[in-house]
């Protein structure tokens, strides 16, 4: 009876289900076909093959009846595979290349870039009037030549004559329908982008290109380097010096001079050799590793000690106002993490901060710029951030310990300290130990607090990389890869990241074994 009644509803909703499924799968397939087409045109065969396999697998999973687990797991796993697992493996690969500033593309790109970069202004060549235009983010040069004729061109787009340009009082073209003229403000903010553009004069690269130093006039530049494809060498037309492929991803001359940019090559263990071999990197790196451990261990120990202490203090039913204390204590945990570092940055400010000015009556303590004080400050802030969490989990764990156990111990004459030390603490440790390990792993990579508060500083002036007294490995990775001061070195940064992987993996394995032992004990 029931089955007869429910069968129609089932079929109706299945129809909607099928429709939703077909539409979603259709969208995914449409995107996939587009991606496959583009990859095919770019001739990236490996990626094409993988994308094709994934698309086929998805269609198979969702069109074939059955395979239920796969239907539920596939979406999450696709994201996990691309943005976590692949990313990790790719980091591993980058660690074995010289990827970074000056080595971020293929050899062909490097050759083109060298030709473009070695362009020099033709002596005494005339100035061209220039207006920089923008169309959908693409920059174009609107050029008025000395004869008053107007041309339009861009990076890799040779000049082409235009007739419908608007001109200003001096006869210089300053606007073109369909394009936005960049204001002085825009020119300033996109300065480096505009300075790097070179617009070929004609289709023949030997004729040179137009470049601009200021955004309002352009000059003719020609290349001083000539590439000989047969011999795979560059020749400097001025000095006659010949540069050959030195095997290190760049062209070098006989006396060892390198031309920038180079290109990306596999360098084997060179990055690791640099990290552990070069004196000015090894020293700071070992210091950073030691501090990373110290920071993670001390952070867990301090927050756990305070959190447990508070949990014990407030775990007494006779005490009034426990709810109030509880809410007040978890406020730092609810406060967004990145803001905490910035707020404490103001509190700790040496000249104007609240701590020096008000709490210490105008003292002049360099909280964030002295090596050891900076370390202490970072730990204080992390204690502030982390103790509420420990308080919460310790309270939960304490309350889940049956009262009978403590009652029985009291009856047997145990004093409160013994009850805690011999009964409550071991039981509590069993349930919170995995969370302590997780907390260690989290603090090991606690980027935000360090970067927001001290930026890793104070910087070690002798280090060959931008490493400071409070730098964790992860902030070092970030600074080496994306830092402003020293140039980007993705290869070395990835080598450091691999180091973090190895350490975290070893610590987790040991940690989880340890907790398993704890569980078996009880």
């Amino acid at each position, binding site marked *: 009876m*029931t*089955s007869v009644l429910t069968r129609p509803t089932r079929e109706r*909703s299945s129809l909607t*289900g099928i429709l939703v499924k077909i539409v979603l799968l259709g969208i995914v397939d449409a995107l996939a076909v*587009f*991606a496959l087409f*583009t990859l095919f045109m*770019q001739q990236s065969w490996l990626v094409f093959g993988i994308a094709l396999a994934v698309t086929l697998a998805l269609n198979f999973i969702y069109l074939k009846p059955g395979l*239920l687990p796969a239907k*539920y797991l596939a*979406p*999450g*796993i696709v*994201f*996990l595979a*691309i*943005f*976590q*697992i692949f*990313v*990790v493996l790719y980091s591993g690969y*980058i660690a074995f290349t010289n990827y970074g500033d000056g080595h971020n593309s293929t050899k062909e790109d490097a050759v083109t870039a060298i030709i473009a970069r070695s362009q020099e202004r033709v002596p005494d060549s005339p100035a061209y009037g220039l207006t920089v235009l923008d169309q959908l983010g693409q920059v174009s040069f609107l050029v008025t030549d000395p004869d008053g004729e107007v041309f339009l061109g861009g990076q890799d787009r040779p000049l082409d004559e235009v007739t419908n340009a608007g001109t200003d009082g001096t006869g210089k073209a300053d606007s073109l329908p369909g394009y936005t003229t960049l204001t002085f403000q825009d020119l300033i903010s996109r300065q480096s982008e505009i300075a790097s553009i070179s617009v070929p004069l004609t289709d023949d690269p030997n004729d040179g290109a137009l470049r601009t130093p200021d955004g309002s006039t352009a000059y003719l530049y020609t290349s001083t380097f000539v590439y000989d494809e047969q011999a795979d060498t560059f020749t400097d037309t001025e000095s006659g010096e010949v540069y050959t492929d030195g095997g290190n991803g760049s062209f070098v001359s006989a006396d060892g001079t390198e031309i920038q940019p180079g290109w990306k090559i596999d360098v084997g263990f060179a990055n690791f050799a640099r990290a552990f071999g070069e004196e000015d990197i090894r020293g700071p790196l070992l210091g950073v590793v030691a501090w990373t451990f110290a920071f993670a261990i001390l952070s867990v120990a301090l927050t756990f000690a305070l959190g447990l202490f508070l949990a014990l*203090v407030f775990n007494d039913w006779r*005490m*009034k106002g426990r709810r109030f*204390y509880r809410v*007040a*204590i978890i406020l*730092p945990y609810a*406060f*967004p993490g*990145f*803001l*905490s570092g*910035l*707020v404490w*940055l103001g509190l700790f*400010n040496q000249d*104007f*901060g*609240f701590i020096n000015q*008000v709490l210490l009556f105008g003292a002049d303590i360099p909280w964030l710029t002295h090596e050891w004080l900076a370390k202490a400050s970072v730990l204080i802030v992390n204690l*502030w951030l982390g103790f509420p969490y420990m308080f*919460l*989990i310790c309270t939960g*764990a304490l309350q889940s310990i049956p009262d*009978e156990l403590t*009652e029985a111990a009291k009856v047997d004459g145990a004093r409160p300290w013994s009850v805690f030390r011999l009964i409550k603490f071991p039981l509590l440790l069993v349930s919170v130990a*995995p969370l302590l390990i997780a907390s260690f792993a989290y603090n090991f*990579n606690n*980027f*935000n607090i360090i970067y927001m508060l001290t*930026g890793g500083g104070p910087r070690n002036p002798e280090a060959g990389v931008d490493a400071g007294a409070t730098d964790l490995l992860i902030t070092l*990775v970030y600074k080496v*890869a*994306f830092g402003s001061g020293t140039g980007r070195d993705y290869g070395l940064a990835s080598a450091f*990241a691999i180091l*973090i992987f190895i350490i*975290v993996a070893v610590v*987790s394995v040991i940690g989880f074994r340890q907790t398993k032992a704890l569980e078996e004990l009880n």
Partner: protein
Amino acid sequence: MTAETLMTAETAPRVIPLKRKLTPGRWFRETGWRHVVGIVVVAFAVFPLLYVLSASLNPTGTLVGSNALFRSIDFSNYVDLFNLPQQPFAAWFMNSIVIGLVTAVGTVFLGALAAYAFSRMRFTGRRVGLLSLLLVQMFPQLLGVVAIFLLLSAIGDIFPILGLGSQLGLILVYLGGALGVNTYLMYGFFNTVPVSIDEAAKIDGASHAQIFFTIILRLVAPILAVVGLLSFVATMSEFVVASVVLQEPARQTLAVGLYTFVSQETSKNWTMFAAGAVLSAIPVMALFLYLQKYIVGGLTAGSVK
């Protein structure tokens, strides 16, 4: 068990008369000192937050002026904050909220799908799958930030809409971390829902999708709220990947925007930053306190089974 109950019953009458003779000294030894500890800790916990609030209401603008706590109440910082040409606070705020919400919803959805499969189905590779998730979650995404940067710049060549500088691309990256710890939390909670409910529904003719969407998801709503909130908070605070992917000021998130804001002019525009901090913290803290009960439950569910 009975003996203990008897003991308490016996001791109880003796405790009550003692309680009546509560002297101040005795009160202090029993609960008074707890309040002293409580007040000290609350001062430590709440002071920085009060300081920011006070600074945000201070019209002087400077860091040194903010040291006079609550000397004046003025909302001009909040108004000025929305009129900065170089620092589009309103855009950062919206970006953070939108990216946070979409990531949270996506994370909950992907995580719930996986947790359902792990909890209700038996298939080859299930144990290995769970263990690998445990392993993968030890390695946070920010370790691969260099690779993420290069991957997105490569994706951008095919789908410019997902490449570097795209918020959608950033969300996709965040969804890569959707499984892992979340699946674990959810898996534990899904297991507490009796399988007999599924079976009853199956007998009534419900399909697996119907069971999942209309029955299970409703029963596990608390854990969905917890995972959603934790994911939202984590996304709001995420700096590393966001700072690398989003370069254009108007597309950045609060974490990236406010950091550059402060690092450029700490002491000069301090009170305006404080106003921004207060506004950014409000949604997160409100949600957090509102869902507090569930969160504490969720946190301990992970450990105390």
